[in-house]
């Protein structure tokens, strides 16, 4: 049995600011980290490995620096790591990213059993790449898994959180799941595994390695959407300002609530 976990290296996105004069994005640092939601996918996968003895592979896509997150995954307990890295993969939207990952999975092992993804990334924030990968692979998926009920050599049963209800379902392999934050508490990387994994090679997959190596199907060329521009969120004008002392502001506020019919005068 072979489980593949998809992970991503993301920037520390909360630090981004827009320069009010030039409109240029300012980043206080180029810090990157493992997408925090992927830690839950890894923990889920490692527990499945501990239970079934399956082979466990991590797959990422990005620049060569993304090797760092694969090394981190290995230090948590992943056996092998692959990185899809090629400048022709750049500028990919959901469609092209899903396709590239699906092709990468086929390159690694046509006979994979289970693909696990985190619920979303903190930079793209779409939560839609995992489902797209499953469609490209022609396999069913269950998103938002919050519990693994049963796992065997043949199938997996999970609980899926769909807001107002909980659906318990089972799927035979091959299939894909995306897991919720908090499904299990992610473990910390182990020093022993880190040392052991330093000897292992993280294999780089380029476009030429993939079953489909038509560059028009990847990166910006293979994308259907295009970013026309980025801008700062609108700021609206204030219509009223109350800046007197506390008592007068409270009175003005009260009158406003009355005039807007939020308070009924008895």
């Amino acid at each position, binding site marked *: 049995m072979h489980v593949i976990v998809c992970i991503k290296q993301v920037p520390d996105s909360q630090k981004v600011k827009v320069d009010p004069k030039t409109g240029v994005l300012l980043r206080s640092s180029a810090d990157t980290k493992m997408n925090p939601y992927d830690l839950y996918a890894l923990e889920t996968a490692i527990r499945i490995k501990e239970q079934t003895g399956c082979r466990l592979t991590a797959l990422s896509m990005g620049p060569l620096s993304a090797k760092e997150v694969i090394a981190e995954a290995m230090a948590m307990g992943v056996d092998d790591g692959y990185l899809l890295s090629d400048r022709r993969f750049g500028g990919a939207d959901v469609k092209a990213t899903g396709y590239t990952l699906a092709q990468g999975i086929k390159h690694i092992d046509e006979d994979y059993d289970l693909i696990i993804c985190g619920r979303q990334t903190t930079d793209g924030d779409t939560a839609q790449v995992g*489902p797209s990968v499953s*469609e490209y692979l022609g396999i069913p998926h269950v998103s938002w898994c919050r519990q693994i009920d049963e796992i065997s050599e043949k199938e997996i049963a999970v609980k899926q959180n769909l*807001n107002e*209800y909980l659906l318990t379902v089972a799927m035979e392999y091959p299939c894909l799941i995306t897991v919720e934050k908090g499904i299990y508490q992610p473990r910390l990387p182990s020093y022993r595994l880190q040392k052991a994994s330093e000897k292992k090679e993280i294999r780089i997959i380029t476009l030429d390695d993939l079953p489909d190596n038509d560059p028009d199907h990847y990166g*910006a060329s293979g994308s259907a959407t295009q*970013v026309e521009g*980025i801008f700062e969120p609108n700021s609206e004008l204030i219509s009223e300002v109350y800046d007197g002392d506390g008592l007068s502001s409270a009175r003005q506020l009260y009158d*406003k609530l009355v005039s807007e019919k939020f308070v009924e005068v008895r």
Partner: protein
Amino acid sequence: MGIVIDHEKCVLCLNCVANCPFGALSVENGRVEVNANCKLCKLCLNNCPVEAISLEENRYEELNKDDYRGIIVYVEHDDGLIHPVTYELIGKARELAAIMNYPVYAVMIGYRIRQKAEELLAYGVDRVLVYDHRELEYFRVDNYTNAFEEAINYLKPSSVLVGATTVGRSLAPSVATRFRTGLTADTTVLEMREDSDLIQIRPAFGGNIMAQIKTTNNRPQFATVRYKVMNSLGKVENPQGVMEVRTLTAEQLASRIRIISYDRLPPVNDIADAEIIVVAGSGVRDEKGLQMVRELAQALGGTVGYTRPMVEKGIGDNHHQIGLSGRSVKPRLIITCGVSGAIQFTTGMNKSDLIIAINSDRNAPIFRIAHVAVVGDLYEILPELLRLVQEGR
């Protein structure tokens, strides 16, 4: 297609490397190179002092956009109970469709849902397609994708709108991928151009910036749309639409997902549905302040909301956290107390009908989106306001 760097012209000023928001540019072997992080935002193009950066455009096989007409809204429901995002999407679809003189379609997939589907005609939908089979009783992405695919092949719509809910964000990427077309996630603004291009705007980088996206050369154009952002236009006076029941083959209905059980979760008192919200931010420093916020919410018949720092401190739970990492809300009234107004927060509430902000810092960013700015100490204002509201005079 992609960013191309003319290494002859490049003077290695590294302005582009430093300003790339995605870390997509780096120096490799003494040359600036583009890596796979590139999102084609084109910032580097505009900021290069020597014009060494250019965009290589795709040569497309020209798509005939006139072959695709109309807008599909996916009708999300739970056992026939229609999710309110559906009415918001129908409202938006009607506005967008009016620009192109397009029909508005609704697609409903489930079991024993015909009556509910028919009720949608009152909202100004021109045509409701219904897929009503026992196999579709519960959401399963594979046979739902088949049903949706049938609807798209039948109607040939230009755009497809799906709520950015748990179901929507599983279904929409599957259907969009099946058609090998573009999908924008979690959009908050939609506009229709006269050439039928759907302009989709969504927050990026945790809401720090907005990205404007379009589907250049593929149809249909897919967007998942955030709940509580668009306006439901309500019912129309003389509904003219029709309902059509479509049937699927056994093959289309087959699913590789086996339902074991279905459990309705106890209703969560979710702040996304509140009409009146009073928010406590970091300026609410102690239990006394929190108590005032709670009492004000109660006196107004509302709910208390919290900012992320407050939830991280253990005050309030995720279901009452407002903002990008919490809930998006669109109440009739929101009063923020001691909330500075980080963009991650305001993105989740700036569509509220009436925004009243109380903050002692005159320059707090919250005042940029507030309709009523109350500059002052909440510990002075709230006790008096509470007294007035409670006494009603």
